[in-house]
């Protein structure tokens, strides 16, 4: 009998081919980020702090702010809604821990790891390139480090996080990712 060990299937990143043929632009570097655990958490008051304790990062209560610790990110998306991201992690153990810590409380927890992909744009002109399609004021006063929000990039909805003055993380639904990537490429072409 022929025995074969099957490799664990990994969902292909829709940006692989685009990223492989991307030209470097120092002022606005584009990176297609690898897989990440992503959990959508919504909950009433009682469930919020136990969920943060189980996740290891307190869920921010201030609008449009993110918290991070040890490679884990908790993003405020709405007054009862957070997106939890852990790059490179398996979602199942994180999911189980939060589910157990909030058992019996009014809340919802959904594993959305495969729903979206991450793009990082970094460099002195990162905000300039984002503003080709994003209508928000991305000056540091209006959009400080640590701020996060759903917004739009051209006609796609994205989640945008500012990790440093010149580093942004974009989380976008995977079918929209090539659209966003190619418009970012177009926006930075003049900088090459």
């Amino acid at each position, binding site marked *: 009998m022929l025995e074969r060990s099957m490799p664990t299937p990994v969902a292909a990143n829709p940006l692989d081919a685009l990223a492989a043929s991307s030209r470097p632009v120092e002022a606005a570097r584009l990176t297609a980020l690898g897989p990440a655990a992503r959990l959508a958490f919504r909950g009433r008051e009682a469930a919020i702090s136990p969920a943060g304790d189980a996740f290891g990062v307190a869920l921010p209560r201030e*609008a*449009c702010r993110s918290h991070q610790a040890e490679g884990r990110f908790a993003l405020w*998306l*709405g*007054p009862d*809604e957070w997106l939890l991201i852990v790059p490179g992690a398996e979602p199942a153990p994180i999911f189980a821990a939060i589910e157990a810590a909030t058992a019996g409380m009014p809340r919802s927890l959904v594993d959305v790891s495969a729903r979206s992909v991450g793009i990082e744009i970094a460099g002195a002109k990162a905000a300039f390139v984002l503003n080709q399609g994003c*209508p*928000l004021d991305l000056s540091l006063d209006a959009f400080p480090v640590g701020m996060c*929000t*759903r*917004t*739009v990039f051209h006609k796609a*909805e994205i989640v945008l996080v500012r990790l440093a003055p010149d580093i942004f993380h974009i989380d976008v639904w995977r079918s929209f990712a090539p659209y966003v990537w190619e418009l970012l490429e177009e926006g930075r072409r003049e900088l090459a």
Partner: protein
Amino acid sequence: MLIIDCPWCGKRPEIEFRYGGEAHIARPADPSALTDQEWADFLYSRTNPKGLHAERWRHIHGCGRYFNAVRDTVSDFFVVTYKAGEARPDIGGDK
């Protein structure tokens, strides 16, 4: 572009929002007790004022929440926004 002040997120561009119709229209508690005319009024009749209008908006490409706004239908100026569930601020216009 209009700037709309989301009660949760603050000032944001109009393109992130969706209109949700007139605000403060409560669904009758017992629809079967209504006449056809009363039910039709609930479903279809709106004030459509020239001037201040309380209306629902949703910050769909932001926090996702519904909220209420008083907007001047002549100038398209947003006079005030407030969270869903709060009373309409007393600033005149049609009630």
